[in-house]
């Protein structure tokens, strides 16, 4: 980085000044002056998630009876030049619901009906609108964090329909 800065600085110097700059070749024809270049590197964080849309597994009667259905979620890829923490939250308190039959879709399906974990075996944590810490790490180049989802179902509440929930993944550096 520093080398790149010097090269660019040289290009910025006007022609007359550049003509006097070869002090080493012609000592005595010019004067030298010490200079310093300072650079402040702040935290640089990069976060990528794939896929952007996770299609949750379609529930069967067995899933309803079990009360849940598991689906692999997205993978977050983190690059950071400082310690970091990945957090997750729902952007709304309830799922958006679109009716697909004469029966109205459930308008109040809570975000907590989607649970997340770092392993398919859990433990699972209910989604909230407040960011929940998922994992922390040190400086890294492309650490992958796999997220696993579990959707909760109730025979009496979860009517047919198309549902979606926006999820916010945030990486912060303390």
């Amino acid at each position, binding site marked *: 980085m520093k080398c790149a800065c010097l090269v660019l600085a040289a290009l910025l110097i006007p022609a007359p000044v550049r003509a006097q700059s070869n002090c080493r070749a012609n000592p005595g024809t010019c004067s030298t002056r010490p200079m310093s270049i300072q650079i402040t590197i702040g935290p*640089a964080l990069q976060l990528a998630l794939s896929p952007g849309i996770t299609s949750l597994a379609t529930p069967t009667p067995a899933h309803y009876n079990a009360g849940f259905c598991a689906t692999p979620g997205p993978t977050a890829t983190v690059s950071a030049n400082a310690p970091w923490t990945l957090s997750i939250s729902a952007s709304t308190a309830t799922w958006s619901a679109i009716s697909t039959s*004469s029966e109205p879709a459930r308008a109040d399906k809570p975000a907590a009906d989607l649970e997340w974990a770092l392993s398919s075996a859990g433990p699972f944590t209910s989604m909230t609108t407040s960011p929940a810490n998922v994992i922390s790490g040190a400086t890294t180049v492309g650490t992958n964090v796999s997220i696993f989802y579990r959707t909760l179902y109730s025979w009496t509440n979860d009517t047919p329909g198309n549902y979606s929930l926006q999820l916010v993944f*945030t990486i912060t550096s303390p």
Partner: protein
Amino acid sequence: MRSLFIGIFAVALAAAPAAAQQFARVTVSAQLAIPQVLTLRSGAVTETTANGTRTRSTTLYVTANRNWVLSVFRNCQSTCGRLQARIVNSDRVTTADFPAGTTSILQGRSGSSIPVTIELTSDASLPPPSELEYLITAA
């Protein structure tokens, strides 16, 4: 002049990292399509005869994630005697006649293994009613 240019450049270099974000945020979505689920399971069937009346009691279990209608299909061609049913669902008791064809007998709300008991009464001197077929459909 030279100092000015280098100084400006140095400031520019220092400013860029300082403005680097302290966080990064990505929004994704989870999507879910819940299909209609309607299941009907038959349980115990008992038949008793007393005082010239035959009573056949059938217990069905409804599981559904939406409102539903229970219907019965009676397949009789010629000797369709009167067949009356007493339907017990939770604390609701209703009665219905089963003519030939399909008759809606009960509506219900979503739930798991909702018991529905159907008591068919008929004249014991007549042949037992032909097979009945129970159907569950969306309300």
